[in-house]
């Protein structure tokens, strides 16, 4: 048994497929690639694959992760090539490497970098200053849907770093590094809060979200 960790990319054309869809898609790709993977026992056997934090529907990523337990002796680079040959357009494995069996993906994940492209209804002249002021508030409360209903949380507690990268009078782009963990808000919550701060000048029906990468604690060492 080998545990292979994979970093993958999800492009524009598949940005609307859900986390669950992506999981199923890989399961089927292993079968097409004829790679024997481990299955759970029981009435409805499931392949032993674990994914990092779910990506929002509509977002792309250049660096999400999943682990899979493989039942054959295969080199990670061969594994990567074999899977990439059978994946639908827009999903690509970027890197595969072997990790110890007790190395659990979810406990490695610490943060993620995001880019949000947005557009505004009118030119906001002092938007860089406004963003600074927005971020420098003592707390930024947002409402989050949870299984137990709506919950108000402070998104500032999750922001490691953020910056308004550019704005041309119509379109802008925000970079944010968010702590990932139980109950982490999404960058969209941030955008919505910024929109409230701007009294609704951002067009929330027209934005693009990209996860640049998930950051593992192994990356930080």
């Amino acid at each position, binding site marked *: 048994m080998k545990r292979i960790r994979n970093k993958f990319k999800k492009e524009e*054309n*598949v940005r*609307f*497929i*859900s986390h*669950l*869809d992506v999981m*199923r*898609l890989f*399961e*089927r*790709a*292993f*079968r*097409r690639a*004829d790679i*024997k993977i481990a*299955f759970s026992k029981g*009435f*409805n*056997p499931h*392949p032993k694959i674990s994914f990092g934090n779910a990506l929002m*529907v*509509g977002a792309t990523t250049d660096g999400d992760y999943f682990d899979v337990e493989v039942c054959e002796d295969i080199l990670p680079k061969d594994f990567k090539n074999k899977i990439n040959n*059978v994946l*639908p*357009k*827009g999903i690509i494995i970027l890197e595969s490497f072997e990790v110890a069996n007790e190395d659990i993906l979810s406990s490695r994940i610490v943060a993620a970098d995001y880019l949000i492209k947005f557009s505004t209804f009118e030119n906001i002249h002092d938007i860089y200053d406004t963003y600074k002021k927005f971020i420098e508030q003592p707390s930024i409360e947002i409402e989050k849907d949870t299984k137990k209903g709506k919950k108000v949380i402070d998104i500032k507690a999750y922001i490691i770093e953020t910056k308004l990268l550019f704005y041309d009078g119509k379109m802008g782009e925000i970079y944010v590094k968010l702590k990932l963990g139980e109950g982490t808000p999404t960058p969209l919550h941030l955008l919505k809060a910024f929109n409230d701060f701007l009294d609704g000048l951002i067009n929330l*029906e*027209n*934005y693009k979200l990209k996860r640049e990468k998930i950051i593992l604690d192994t990356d930080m060492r």
Partner: protein
Amino acid sequence: MEQLKEKIDSLLMRVSKPTRYIGGELNSVEKNLENVYIRFAFAFPDVYEVGMSHLGMKILYSLLNEEDDIYCERVFAPWIDMENLMRENKIPLFSLETKTPLDKFDFVGFTLQYEMSYTNLLNMLNLGNIPILSKDRKEGPFIIAGGPCAYNPAPLSEVVDIFVMGEGEEVILEIMEVYRKWKNISGKRDEFLKLISKIEGVFIPAFYEEIYNSDGTIAEIKPLKEDISPRVKKRIIKDFETIFYPEKQIVPFMDIVHDRIMLEVFRGCTRGCRFCQAGMIYRPVREKSVEKLLELADKLIKSTGYEELSLTSLSTCDYSQIEDLVKKLIEKYHDEGVGVAIPSTRIDAFSVNLLNEIQKVRKTGLTLAPEAGSQRLRDIINKGVTEEDLMVSTEEAFKAGWNTIKLYFMIGLPGETFEDVEGISDLVHKVISIYKKVRGNLKDLKITVSTSIFVPKPFTPFQWVGQEDVNTIIEKQDLLKKNLRGKNIRYSWHDHRTSFLEAVVSKGDRKVGRAIIKAWEKGCKFDGWDEYLKYDKWLEAFEEEGIDPHFYANRERNYDEIFPWDVVDVGVNKKYLLRELNKSKELKTTNDCRVFCTGCGIKEFDEEVKCFETH
């Protein structure tokens, strides 16, 4: 095109299930449009997840795309949220593959699986900027339609240009061949229709006229041109073993209704249930060999990576080599985690044992369809199942560990009394007692009982029968609601309004067709989805068209009445159907035609076709 793609993309953030509209799935076909001569839009008049579960689409999509100069793309009915945004933003209905507007195709082909999707068909044409009426279309795509509901072409006769009767994979390329030549010489629309009307299985509704008697029944279906055949014979696949079958099937990103490989084991059914249209129109029974099926299964598993393979047929357990096939499939794919599914199960111990075998890989549900609650009524409908069968098979199933069971019945069957309906609940309670006997308690038992409402269908022995009146249906449902209480039972029933409309349309003529258009104009669509059915709008439409819906749904027909669908010859003849109707009235059953021939007419229909051919 790029521009349209971007416009569509910008809407997707705002709709439910955006994956319905993106295309690009594994095994979907990409072609260079410069090398394509004929563009075919295969349109399914329902949402993506329903349409993508349909076998006929998989077959014809692959078959057409095998031809280098033909590009077949897929189109589905957008869900209501998407439709609203499309209309608001002036986005025409588009194909998934290249996001091409519907009116830019050479053909738009609809499969007619369900009468209550006809308003969706009209809505899709309209969303695609295509005039609803055939006579108003001077250019743009030809509208072609097939599928089981096409066997009564009358209701959509003023909308559809070309009907294909019978098995499409046998006919479609012949039509394409004529089209190539016609397109080359830029002929007139009417000329093309005339040319293909010579192909067996092709019915051009514009070449016929319905003439009525003073009582509203049909006097004649009259060919309007001299050299037009008064009746059209359906097409039958001559060699089912070697006929094209897709070795690749599209693997959707999203979860669809039937999210698995479909492997068709045989076509047709030998049981002869008298209510069942599929059992009549898909005759004769033709099987594929185990070797062929294993070869196809292997290719399909490799090309899709699916975790489940479904052996699809009308009554799969009737396949002559079923045990052998299932055993071999399980042996071969067990280790890869690929399960086998059998969608419809006979009620006997044999089938339950077979399912046991299947369960070793993946747990499947158990669904049994006794259809009626008493032996008398089961004899009337020729459902060759006894109460004993049901008791034995459920006992076997409970012993084998099943806790969940679904039972399907029909109410409103010809000759059904309230006692027969009581029989349904009695049966359910007997099944519960069996569970108690086997397991000692009822803790984990879940029984789902579902009743549909009988809709008399064309080309069945019950085509002469009227549908039971709505009030009696409601009373019967109420009786069952009362009798099927308890924490182990879940009872669900069909909406009587939908079944009534289905009865009107399925036996409708061209006048009903006009009412369908009216209903659509009044906003009807997704009529098969209970929450969207606008029943009052339908009633208004009937009234405005001067139609009495009961005349179509509830009226018992005379034996010599000419039906709108008599213009089609499905092989099973009227004499046989009538004989079966009369036997049902005498409570006489008819044997399965695997035992010996029951003389339905299919053998005389086409000398080349051998009935129940095994390899």
